[in-house]
């Protein structure tokens, strides 16, 4: 389905690394104000797709539009309105949290930076971490700080790579609540990659399923549960991921939209 108000529009995206096709003719859209999940097993093409959306990786073919801007040619027009968080991409470890947020606030040209940092720090409850070097924080604290960095510019599009990976259940719940509150307050669009299916059911309006670089299905969590006759998204995920092993190829099937 083609959303008139799509914030993310990916058309026939392909990425080939020498002989390996990491992303194969993937097309999807994410509507304004929605939260979508990019799901798939390891090597399904999620990180490659996210990297292309962020402009870190140039696709072999295809088109990517974010907030109405062609990301392959004009990404700098829109980067101040996007942000990103991943537990696998650090901030400078020797800088304190305060210094890191100050540097990134300037990079994103955030107005009234000091008060914006105070607001985000208050929202995430990381005031006590401000004077501490980022490298000395626990995994959970680091995730909260990178989330703070990701919210500094109040992004219209927030891309999250496994936002609650390595967090304890309490901190993970806190992070999910924060993402929900942020979306409710700002109307931002969120695209996340996650392996946590309860998180997907809780946060997401839409799910995009990838397998071996191809889009194999998409829909709302409720639609997918109904289509696969399953009780939860974890079972749906396993059904789709194991198609490859049991040879029930979905490749020829038109993905639902």
């Amino acid at each position, binding site marked *: 389905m083609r959303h008139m108000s799509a914030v993310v529009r990916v058309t026939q995206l392909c990425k080939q690394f020498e002989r390996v096709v990491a992303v194969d003719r993937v097309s999807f859209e994410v509507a304004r104000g929605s939260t979508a999940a990019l799901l798939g097993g390891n090597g399904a093409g999620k990180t490659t797709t996210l990297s292309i959306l962020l402009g870190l990786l140039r696709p072999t073919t295809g088109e990517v539009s974010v907030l109405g801007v062609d990301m392959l040619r004009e990404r*700098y027009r829109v*980067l101040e309105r996007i942000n990103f968080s991943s537990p696998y*991409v650090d901030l400078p470890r020797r800088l304190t949290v305060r210094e890191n947020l100050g540097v990134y606030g300037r990079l994103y040209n955030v107005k009234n930076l000091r008060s914006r940092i105070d607001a985000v720090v208050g929202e995430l409850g990381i005031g006590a971490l401000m004077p501490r070097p980022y490298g000395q924080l626990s995994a959970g604290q680091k995730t909260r700080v990178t989330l703070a960095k990701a919210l500094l510019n109040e992004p219209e599009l927030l891309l999250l790579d496994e936002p609650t990976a390595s967090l304890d259940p309490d901190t993970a719940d806190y992070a999910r609540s924060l993402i929900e509150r942020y979306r409710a307050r700002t109307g931002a669009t969120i695209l996340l990659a996650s392996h946590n299916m309860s998180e997907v059911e809780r946060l997401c309006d839409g799910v995009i399923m990838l397998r071996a670089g191809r889009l194999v299905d998409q829909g709302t969590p409720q639609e997918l549960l109904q289509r696969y006759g399953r009780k939860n998204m974890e079972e749906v995920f396993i059904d789709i991921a194991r198609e490859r092993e049991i040879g029930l190829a979905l490749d020829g099937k038109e993905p639902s939209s």
Partner: protein
Amino acid sequence: MTLPERIGASLQRVGALVLRHMYLLRGSWPRVLELMYWPTMQMVLWGFITVFLVNHSSWVAQASGVLISAVLLWDVLFRSQLGVALVFMEEMWSRNLGQLFVSPLRPTELVAALLTMSLIRTVIGVGGAALIAIPLFDYSIFSLGLPLIAFFVNLIIMGWAIGMIVSGIVLRYGLGAESMAWIAIFAVQPVSGVYYPVSILPEWLQWLAHALPSSYVFEGMRAVLFEHSFRVDLLVHAVLLNVVFLAVGISGFLAFFNIARTRGQLLQIGE
């Protein structure tokens, strides 16, 4: 966004990255000490060699500051190149490149920040050693006068150019290539005529020497010290070559950046 606003935002991003590295220097006195350590050690070593040679060599006796000036100016070139490469690798070591490249920071702004930090680090490192030379050997490189500015600017630009190429190679081939940062500049040292005139090189090597801005700077330095004259012709050669060097250096870095972006290496930084 209007053009002045865009320029302002761009300068703010360059400033933000410079600030990030200044925080690093401010928070670690060993880093600042390290910046001055090698230039000072080199200067002390060559200073004592000078003291010895002044009494045993007519060439050095004619201009006792020649070796100390040479070693300090050589360190301008070395520190400038190293400054660019180390500041860039700092981002790789801290796995921060992914965050930087998804921010509005443009590659050209990253280059501007790297060059600014290289300048700051070189001034701290070589400036400290130059000040120590004054009481220790009763010689001030600042006695070269205004030509010193021309020498400094030319050497720092050549160092930037080599540093950009080295950074591009490290970006493209990973941290396994980081030793390039330490060794690359020494490939040009023998043919730069740092401690001896270019004329003593074999003729075929003189051709190579004359393709390097550094050889004109060191010839110019000796002209000031021995002949008390400032050779504008040498300066013009150095400047023209540096225009080419800097253009190649920055273009090379941006080309490596584009290759890394195509091959997916901006997020997968490592050995």
